[in-house]
């Protein structure tokens, strides 16, 4: 081919460069199609790059010469055109080489980089141990299952025994440095020839595929918002757990590493370009990642969702500084903004759920009285719930900033209790909410107690339940600290009061039979005792006691200590009274006919019988024992 005249100086250089470029023109030669320069050998690659450089130099020389001429002659135009063509061929080739190198080294992130059994998202199973009879979903079993799975995967894939953490940004090398050098070299040439756009396109599409593979490996699903609304919450809980783990890996390892790779490859050409490539690669996947969290944040609120939502909130909060570090350019505004929006929605959701919960406790409508006056499932549920809340104290203290909406003291609204705030000065809003929940629970329980026909049972019911509340509060230091000893004292007083009311309700009339008055007949010299009245007394006492014994054996006080205490308290009043009654009046009965009809029970009998009380199951009626 003809040599452009004014390039005589470099004519040899240009000529040989052009030869090399044309030799590798894949549209022209079969051979060129079959092989890749950068896979062949180093020398070939270097030669090619030098050739490209040479052509580029010529291009600028041609431009300079052209502009220095008075007008462009046909030759000059031709020359420029030829050089341009050569450049284009070179660029097309480099683009393919670039793509090829990328593809060769683009696969999903290695497993051992991904997993981290010691990460914080699964380090708190102890907090979430729930009672057996709880109605909340049992986190424990699924935690353990996940732990097990992770450990298995880790053992299978990792050579090293070091556990790596995803608690902070950790960039990994996605490609060998040789490849990066090559990519750098190619990128430089493409960009200086004005082929930046092609470069970005190729880069983005290959790396996006790699990220997609990593996403699949991490188990990141593409769920629509509709899907998330439809799924059962339990299913969502495990997805949330998985998401939290995956999100940490994505932000701190995957995206951070991609960013580093962009910076490395486009090191010499300025930050705008590596930003552009990074966003091209990562924007879509990042949006996909956050879409799930967003879907969760807008799901319908109901109490059982609180804790997983708090988990999600905490995880995202923890990740936010890293999200901001990784997505720090202007073009990634939308991602940062979305993450912040989701965080704020999750906080709103948590607040809303708490409110929801309080209303639900207040309104809980079951009317069927719990048999035996024992602890109502509502009480258990609520106390467990607020115990868990106290576990999440750290987060919730930040989130819960307004006081509970209690009824007004003057509203006269019978359907809501009111709560004095004066004595609760200095308490955090969260603590106030917890106290409010207990107030509301009691209010509801008081209502439920009215469904018992037997007033004694109603009192017992209240005693049992309030005692349970007290025990639960005492059992959790955080809860106790928030509720405060003042209110705890109030609660204690309430159940003691209920115990007293119970005793009064049941035993006053029983003990009434054992009173002195009305038995003595005044008048005659030998101050006598009305035998008939006495017999009546004994009969009444026996009947009453039997009835109470029969009934109240089936009642239940689940707490052993409380049961004991109440029995002792009953005994303390009953036994001495009976003993003294027996002592004073048995002779009168025994001197009459059929004393066994009236003095049915010895003191020991009664003592034994009291032990049957509140056991929760019926006793046979064989209490009759003749006393000699």
């Amino acid at each position, binding site marked *: 081919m003809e040599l452009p005249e004014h390039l005589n100086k470099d004519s040899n250089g240009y000529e040989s460069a052009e030869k090399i470029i044309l030799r590798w023109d894949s549209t022209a030669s079969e051979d060129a199609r079959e092989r890749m320069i950068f896979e062949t050998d180093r020398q070939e690659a270097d030669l090619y790059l030098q050739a490209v450089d040479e052509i580029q130099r010529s291009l600028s020389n041609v431009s300079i010469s052209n502009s220095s001429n008075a007008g462009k002659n046909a030759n000059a135009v031709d020359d420029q055109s030829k050089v341009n063509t050569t450049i284009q061929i070179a660029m097309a080739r480099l683009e393919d080489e670039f793509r090829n190198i990328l593809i060769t080294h683009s696969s999903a992130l290695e497993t051992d980089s991904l997993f981290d059994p010691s990460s914080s998202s699964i380090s708190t199973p102890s907090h979430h141990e729930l009672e057996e009879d709880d109605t909340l979903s049992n986190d424990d079993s699924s935690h353990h299952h996940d732990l097990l799975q992770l450990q298995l995967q880790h053992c299978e894939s990792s050579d090293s025994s070091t556990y790596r953490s995803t608690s902070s940004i950790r960039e990994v090398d996605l490609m060998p440095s040789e490849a990066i050098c090559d990519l750098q070299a190619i990128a430089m040439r493409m960009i200086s020839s004005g082929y930046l756009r092609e470069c970005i396109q190729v880069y983005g599409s290959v790396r996006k595929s790699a990220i997609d593979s990593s996403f699949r490996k991490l188990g990141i699903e593409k769920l629509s918002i509709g899907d998330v609304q439809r799924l059962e919450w339990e299913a969502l809980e495990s997805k949330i757990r998985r998401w939290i783990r995956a999100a940490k890996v994505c932000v701190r390892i995957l995206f951070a590493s991609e960013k580093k790779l962009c910076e490395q490859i486009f090191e010499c050409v300025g930050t705008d370009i590596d930003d552009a490539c990074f966003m091209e690669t990562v924007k879509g996947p990042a949006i996909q990642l956050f879409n799930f969290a967003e879907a969760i944040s*807008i799901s319908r609120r109901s109490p059982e969702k609180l804790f997983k939502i708090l988990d999600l909130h905490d995880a995202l909060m923890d990740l936010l500084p890293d999200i901001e570090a990784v997505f720090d350019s202007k073009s990634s505004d939308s991602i940062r903004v979305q993450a912040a929006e989701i965080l704020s929605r999750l906080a709103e959701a948590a607040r809303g759920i708490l409110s929801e919960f309080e209303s639900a406790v207040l309104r809980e409508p079951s009317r069927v009285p719990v048999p035996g006056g024992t602890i109502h499932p509502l009480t258990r549920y609520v106390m467990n719930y607020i115990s868990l809340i106290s576990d999440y104290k750290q987060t919730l203290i930040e989130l819960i900033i307004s006081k509970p909406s209690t009824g007004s003291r003057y509203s006269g609204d019978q359907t809501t209790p009111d709560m004095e705030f004066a004595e609760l000065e200095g308490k955090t809003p969260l603590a106030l909410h917890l106290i409010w929940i207990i107030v509301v629970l009691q209010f509801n329980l008081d209502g439920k107690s009215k469904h018992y026909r037997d007033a004694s049972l109603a009192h017992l019911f209240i005693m049992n339940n309030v005692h349970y509340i007290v025990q639960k509060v005492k059992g959790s230091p955080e809860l106790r600290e928030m509720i405060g000893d003042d209110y705890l004292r109030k609660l204690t007083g309430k159940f003691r009061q209920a115990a007293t009311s119970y005793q009064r309700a049941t035993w006053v009339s029983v003990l009434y039979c054992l009173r002195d008055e009305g038995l003595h007949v005044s008048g005659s010299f030998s101050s006598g005792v009305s035998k008939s009245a006495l017999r009546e007394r004994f009969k009444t006492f026996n009947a009453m006691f039997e009835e109470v014994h029969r009934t109240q054996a089936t009642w239940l006080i689940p707490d052993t200590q409380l049961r004991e205490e109440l029995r002792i308290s009953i005994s303390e009043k009953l036994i001495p009274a009976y003993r003294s009654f027996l002592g004073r009046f048995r002779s009168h009965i025994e001197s009459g006919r059929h004393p066994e009809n009236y003095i049915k029970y010895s003191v020991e009998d009664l003592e034994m019988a009291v032990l049957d009380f509140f056991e929760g199951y019926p006793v046979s009626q064989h209490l009759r024992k003749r006393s000699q």
Partner: protein
Amino acid sequence: MPATDYQASFLGRISIRRNQVIAMDGNHEQELQDLELFSKHVSERFAELLSSPDDVPFGALLSISWLRKLLDFFLCCEAEFKGILMMGNDPSQISKPPLDRLIPEFLDRSVKALDVCNAVTNGLESVRHYQKLAEIVVSALEQKPIGDGQSRRAKKALTSLMSAMNVDDKECSAAKATERSWSFSRRGVSSKDRVPEHFRSVSNQVAKNWSAAKQIQAMTNNLVPPRGAEGSGLASPVYTMNVIMVFVMWALVAAIPCQERNGLSAIHFPAPKQLNWAQSIIGLHEKIGEEWKKKEKKGTAGLLDEMQKMEKLGNILMDFTDSFQFHVDITGQKAEEAAAHAAELAETCRRMEEGLLPLQMQIREVFHRIVKTRTELLNALDQVGKSSPPLL
């Protein structure tokens, strides 16, 4: 509705008994006025959207700026609608018939609309991708005089662009790589690791089986105009808002490439012609529907005006670069024409550059608004106590 007007009628209510009947009617009148205003505004806004200036061809419909206007109107209508629904009325009304059925349906449609928003946002990424490819074409053809090199460069980009626009619309299978075409066919690529499974131009964030057309179809389920006495209360604006929401989503999906849009034009619009405010919407639906049917046969990426232009110009320029390649005589006139087309393409790219991001942000705002209204309605329903889930 201005707050002061409402206050006046409220105060009117607590006046002496003698005035009570009149005052209560006044309140009711206020409501009717608000409903009428709402319908009127809806009517006006959509009439504006329907009218295109005489000198602009149909294509101005569904352009980026038209879509932005549409979304803007949606937000306005939505705000008015919420005002009518939430403020001033007895909150327990929403749990009474017919709203006790209509509101949950509305909420369900809202959730579907959210998914459409996300799909459309995803689709806009595709459009952005086309823009970038087109920009390569423009930058190649900008240089004068156009030489062989530039022409080849442009052709390469055009090939990618045209195949991306065509293939993105059909469900992309792994076989049809939509990636920027290799300069040559690769042989000897044996092991699986070397070529990733998919080579989509834009990673797809939408769930596999999700279908935009089916989603919109589902949104039209149970959408019937209120009958008889129902029509005088809140059922009416609820119906109106539903129709607006469905229409907006439908139009977005028609304009922007979304997963699985077969059958979009078959979606029947449940708005009877008698309703005044619906006239323009029905008109728009017909117009857009017709265009869709035309394009459906050719299988192109969507009705977005800028994309249509891009496609048209792309074809023309492709012919040009072909003729260049085969050394057909390029006269000065042809070159000038090509330059003119390239300039048009540049203009289209510029409009995309200016408008796509704001459009995405607007869709996001629509998303937020729908979420907000939904949350408020759910809260209101819960307050009334009927819809909260049982505790135990």
